[in-house]
Every structure is written in structure tokens, then in C-alpha cells.
């Protein structure tokens, strides 16, 4: 009988709902596969801390590493040392540049954001105003979602004024920004957010401006319980859902497979899904997010 495999799952320390779901998926996959899963986080999203964790895991000779890098490029030297030590490395959610990793499991952020942009474009006419709540532009996820969104929007409508609300993935920042934006752009038709927390902020901003649910359309990104709840209550009209717990689950499954010496694909797109009120309940059930939503 083979000894139990040890798999390291190293997350990036993000503490929002989306990441909670991804991490839950990873842990469930670890249990299901019957491996020993060491699950650790780079505290406060600090790269050098994550580097230190990877090095610890190398010295512990784990059988495979699944990692959500804090920084695509910065993690590369440690990853290269892990690979050199014969440890397969699977990137989860965020890619790694500068290292030939075993596999990359994620939503294609650009592709998903293009869907968000197209949907938005279909809701507006030329000359309309759209508010876009931007994720942190110092991170590739934030940059990819923004460029994908703008790309998709421009494919459908060229003459749209986009008012950007910059944030660092912070809900209060999003709320304050949208409040200001609504003040100077009362005619905004759609608020798009780079993540669901921003959408929650947008709803609060509408509340404080005395606007009713639906008077401005909100489109989210993530498919997190909070976002889907908003849709259920009529505050959100569309949500580009990532298969959140699937990302974590597939990431760990792929790591287990690689540790067992099986060959795994270099890129696994866990896909995205445009959730609309019509297919909301179905999606919530199928993705398992429903267990985190209040009835």
C-alpha cells in the first residue's frame, strides 16, 4: 500500500467570500482524495511571506503544491526551486510567469470579463454612462478583468462614457466611490463591478442615494453567495460567476493527480457562467453556493 500523499495548498491570504469558497473547495477535494492536505495562507497577501511558505514546503518534501500566488512573477524563483526538487506545482486562480509549472487551473479572467462587458453593452445606448468599479490595478487579476470588461463593452457599444471607481478590492472604498460617481453622473445606467464585494458597495451607494432596486442595473463578477443574494433580491441583474469552489477543487485534484505521477493538462479553464435572474436558482444549486446563501 502506498504511503499517504502530502499536498500543500498555499492560498494568497485574501479574505473575501470568493476566496473562502475557493479554499473550501480545495479542502473538500483534499478530504475526498484521502491525502494529507497542508493548507496555509500568505498572511496579508505579502509576497515575501508566500515565498517563505513555499520554501518551508520544499524543505518538508511535500508531494505536490497547489498555490494561489500573491504575485504572478515574484513567486517564480521559489516555484522554480520546487520544480527543481521534483515537486509538481499547480497554480490556482492566478498564473505564474517565469516558471514552467505543471498546470494552471483558473477562470480565464479576460474571457469572463469580456462576457461582463458585452452584457453591459447590450443594456445601454450610445452616449450613456456606465460606472465600473475597478479592482486593484497593481494585480494582474484586477488588470485583466478591467481590460476584458472594456474590450467586451467596446465590441457592442463604442460611444459609452465609462466612469471608473478605483479600489483596492475594498467594499467601503467602492461604496464611497460610487456615491461620488452617482452625484456627478445621475444618468448612469449600469454599475459593473470587478468583484461581488464592489457590487455590495454599489447597492449601498444606491440605497444612500435613495435609489430603488433595479433603477440602475448592477452586474457583478464572482458568483459569490453575497452577489447571488443581491440578485435574488432584485438588486443585481447579471453576474459573471466563476466556478469558485470548483477552482479550488480542481486545483487540488490536479495536484493529487500530478503527485501520483499522472500527466495533467497544462491549462485547465474552470470556465465562467453568466448568471441571470432566470437561471439563478439552478446555478446556485449546481455550483453548491446555495448552502452559503440564506433562504
Amino acid at each position: 500500500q502506498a504511503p499517504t500523499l502530502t499536498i500543500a495548498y498555499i492560498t494568497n491570504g485574501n479574505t473575501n467570500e470568493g476566496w473562502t469558497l475557493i479554499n473550501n473547495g480545495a479542502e473538500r477535494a483534499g478530504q475526498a482524495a484521502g491525502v494529507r492536505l497542508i493548507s496555509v495562507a500568505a498572511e496579508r497577501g505579502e509576497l515575501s511571506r508566500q515565498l517563505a511558505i513555499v520554501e518551508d514546503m520544499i524543505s518538508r518534501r511535500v508531494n505536490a503544491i497547489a498555490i494561489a500566488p500573491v504575485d504572478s512573477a515574484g513567486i517564480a524563483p521559489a516555484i522554480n526551486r520546487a520544480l527543481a526538487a521534483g515537486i509538481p506545482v499547480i497554480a490556482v486562480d492566478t498564473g505564474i510567469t517565469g516558471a514552467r509549472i505543471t498546470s494552471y487551473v483558473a477562470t480565464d479572467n479576460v474571457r469572463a470579463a469580456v462576457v461582463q462587458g458585452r452584457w453591459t453593452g447590450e443594456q445601454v445606448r450610445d452616449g450613456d454612462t456606465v460606472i465600473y468599479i475597478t479592482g486593484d490595478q497593481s494585480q494582474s487579476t484586477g488588470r485583466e478583468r478591467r481590460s476584458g470588461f472594456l474590450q467586451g463593452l467596446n465590441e457592442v457599444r463604442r460611444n459609452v462614457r465609462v466612469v471608473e471607481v478605483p479600489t483596492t478590492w475594498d467594499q467601503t472604498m467602492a461604496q464611497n466611490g460610487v456615491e461620488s460617481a452617482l452625484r456627478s453622473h445621475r444618468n448612469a445606467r449600469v454599475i459593473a463591478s470587478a468583484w461581488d464585494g464592489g457590487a455590495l458597495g454599489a447597492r449601498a451607494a444606491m440605497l444612500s442615494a435613495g435609489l430603488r432596486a433595479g433603477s440602475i442595473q448592477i452586474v457583478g463578477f464572482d458568483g459569490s453567495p453575497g452577489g447571488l443574494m443581491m440578485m435574488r433580491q432584485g438588486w443585481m441583474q447579471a453576474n459573471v460567476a466563476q466556478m469558485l469552489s470548483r477552482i479550488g477543487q480542481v486545483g487540488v485534484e490536479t495536484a493529487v493527480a500530478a503527485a501520483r505521477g499522472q500527466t495533467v493538462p497544462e491549462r485547465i479553464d474552470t470556465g465562467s457562467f453568466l448568471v441571470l435572474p432566470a437561471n439563478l436558482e439552478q446555478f446556485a444549486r449546481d455550483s453548491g453556493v446555495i448552502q452559503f446563501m440564506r433562504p
Partner: protein
Amino acid sequence: MNNINRQDWFGALVAVVALGLVLSVASPYFLTAGNLSNVLVKASVIALLAGAQTFVILTSGVDLSVGAVTALAGAIAGHLMLKLGVDPYAAIAVALLIGIGVGMFNGYLIAYVGIPSFIVTLGGLTLWRGLAFESTGGFDNSGLPDPFPFIGYGEILGIPMPILIMLLAYVVMAFVLSSTRFGRHVYAIGSNAAGARQVGINIRRSTMGVYVVSGFVCALAAIVLMARMDSSSGRMAMNFELDAIAAVILGGTSLFGGRGSIWGSLLGAILITMIRNGMNLLEISQFKQMMAIGAVVILAVWIDVIRRKRMLR
């Protein structure tokens, strides 16, 4: 010598007015009907935290845990209401008790054990936020029941509730600081702790009191903030501690204790909110916003320093 321009907070007042003028020239929307009250509403949470912080800084301490305590009180209250179906008023009471409890914990370690406030509250910064995440599993709770919508968006006599709550807290805090025995002792401890002890002030009890006030006001801020966000989570009020401290110092209170006033902190909080808010009105990009915020904070105090020097001549 109580001329208005000799007050510690006069610089903050000038900065608020000056920045207000700049913004209303730069953006036609700044002076619109609701925006001024809007600035106050947005400032209300930072203002509450800055008010709490003022007590602490006046005793020459510092409370780095205000943001984390806000998150803990808010996250648990939200979790109780939405996940466990607890009555909202009971949840509010629990939040306030959490604030008082954390304040007592901080106060005990600082006043009775003698650990520096910086360490206790730096530890608290991650300890309480970690607890907030742990106890909610990292999930948000949105769509809060009554009376939260009223607290967040209601009005009494045309004054939005967040402003009302904040001003009420300020009036009480200002009274306590300027006109009660406890307030007097707060200043004395910050000015000369050893001396205050020698004349027979119970500096331990007063210091404890300061952190309890801080914890309680943080919980109050948590209630206002979650009502405003219509949701709560362990991520609430992230990094608010530095804004709160900056507001206090912009308001003219000395970081070394003993000198300053609470109304200055309110002005400081408004100033910081206007800076952040103004950037959004001007649609400045994320990175340029960061730079501008830093520069304006330095500039505001720079002008104040020059003014004071002039005055001394």
C-alpha cells in the same frame, strides 16, 4: 488668549475650508445640495473612530486596533442577525458589549500589566480581525433587518442618522473631556503620568476607562458602518486605524499626549474624507490618487505649521 486662531484645531478648519473651495471650483458637483451633508455622512465612521482615538492619544497611548474592533463587533452582530436569527436590538447590544469587552482587555493589559499600548493594539489588530473572520467563516452578511436601514439612511429633522449619531457621540465625548473629572485626568496622564500618579490620580482606572471608551465607540462606529454598507463582514473598516490616527493629528492633537481637543479630530476626519472623496469626483486614477492623498495630508499640516510660526512672531 482664547482667540480662535490660537486653537490647536484652527489649522484643520482652514484646511477643510480651503480644500472645499478648491473642490467646488474643480468639480461643479461638489457644492450640490446634498454633497456637503454627504461628506459628513461619509466622514461619520472615521470621525467616530477618530473621537475614540483622541481619548487614547491624549493619554499618550495609541489604539491600532480600532478598525479590527469595528470589524469584530460588526461581523459578529451581522452573523448573529442573519445566520442565527438573533433579534437586531439584541445583536446591537452584543456589538456594544464586544466593544466594551475588547476595551477592557486592552485597558487591563496596558494600565495594569504595563504592556505598551502600541504592542497590545498591534497584536489586537490581527487578533480581533482574525476572530471576526473565524467566527463568520469569512462570509459576508448582507441585507440587514430593521432598524439598520433607518440607521444607515433614515433622517430625523432632515439630518441623516449617521451624522446625528456621530454628532451626539461627539457632544458627549467633548463634554466628558472638557468638563468631567475623568476628562481632566486624561489630559493630566498624557501630560505627566508620573506626576498625575503622585498627586493621587488613579491613573490605572482612568487609562482603563480610556480604552473602554475607545472600544465602545468603535462598536458604535461598527453599527453605523454596517448600516451604511447594508452588510457586514470581517473585512469591514480595513486600514481605518491609520486614517483615524491621522484625523486626530491633523486636528491638532499631540501624538505625545496632554494637548489637543476632540473637535479638532472631527475636522481632521472631515478633511481626510474630503481628500478621498474629492479624488473620486475628479476621477483621478488609483495610483495618482494614492500619491495625491499622501501629498495633501503632508501639505495640510505644513501650512498649519507655517501659520503657527507666523503667529509666534
